[in-house]
């Protein structure tokens, strides 16, 4: 897991949050985890395929998710319904999409899969044995958003170049 993959996601997350939520996120200290793991209640998972492959997970607490969804929809939401879930998933999709554009500028071509929303705590995603780098972002009064990036260069199987 190269640290160079982190910067585009952090930059995209900051840009998208600024534009969508009107708040400038404050970036916390980068952390490493041996695997993709989240203890947050609401998680958006986006698959990345291309020159780099893996998963990116955006984790946030239930109350932060509701506050963000309310800000995105433009009305106070008290129940995490389908519209709130869709808004949160779209936030992950926009960050991932913008990150893919920034990666492309570095010559790393990749595509993203539609976001999946996972609710529940202590989620460990063990389909990939790739360490994860974690960027915590503070979103002012809205709460915090944790960006977990677990990517690796595309593996060439059987010694064949793709």
């Amino acid at each position, binding site marked *: 897991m190269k640290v160079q993959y982190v910067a585009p996601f952090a930059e995209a997350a900051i840009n998208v949050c600024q534009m969508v939520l009107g708040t400038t996120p404050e970036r916390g200290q980068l952390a490493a985890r041996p695997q993709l793991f989240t203890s947050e209640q609401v998680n958006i998972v986006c698959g990345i395929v291309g020159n780099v492959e893996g998963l990116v997970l955006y984790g946030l607490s239930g109350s932060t998710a509701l506050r963000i969804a309310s800000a995105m929809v433009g009305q106070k939401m008290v129940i995490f319904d389908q519209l709130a879930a869709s808004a949160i998933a779209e936030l992950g999709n926009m960050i991932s999409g913008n990150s893919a554009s920034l990666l492309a500028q570095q010559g790393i071509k990749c595509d*993203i899969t539609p976001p999946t929303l996972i609710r529940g705590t202590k989620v460990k995603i063990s389909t990939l044995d790739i360490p994860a780098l974690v960027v915590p972002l503070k979103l002012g009064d809205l709460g915090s958003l944790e960006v977990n990036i677990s990517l690796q260069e595309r593996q060439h199987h059987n010694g064949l170049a793709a």
Partner: protein
Amino acid sequence: MSKRILVADDALFMRATLKAILTGNGFEVVGEATNGQEAVELYQSLKPDGVTMDITMPVMDGISAVAKIKEIDPNARIMMVSAMGQKDMVLQAIQAGARDFLIKPFQPDNVVEKVNNLIAA
């Protein structure tokens, strides 16, 4: 008469946002597709004046849907609205037949301006 727009996006939130912006600016959203396949089917049945099309969608992606719609109607007016704004993606969409490209997140004024251009072109 209001111009009739078809909105294709897998995210309920994005369809609701685009619909609110468009209907608030004098357009009529005649249909909402949740994937590329639905967009092709709804295009045929609704014959809208313009289409906003996401790229990353399940079942059929937006670029494939644009190509299919252009096979059916070479004059179709379709604009991509996607979070994937890299040059390759824009080129693929334009080659498939899309007339314009709007990157998410967007400002409502940009949506209105681009959809106005799309249907006026």
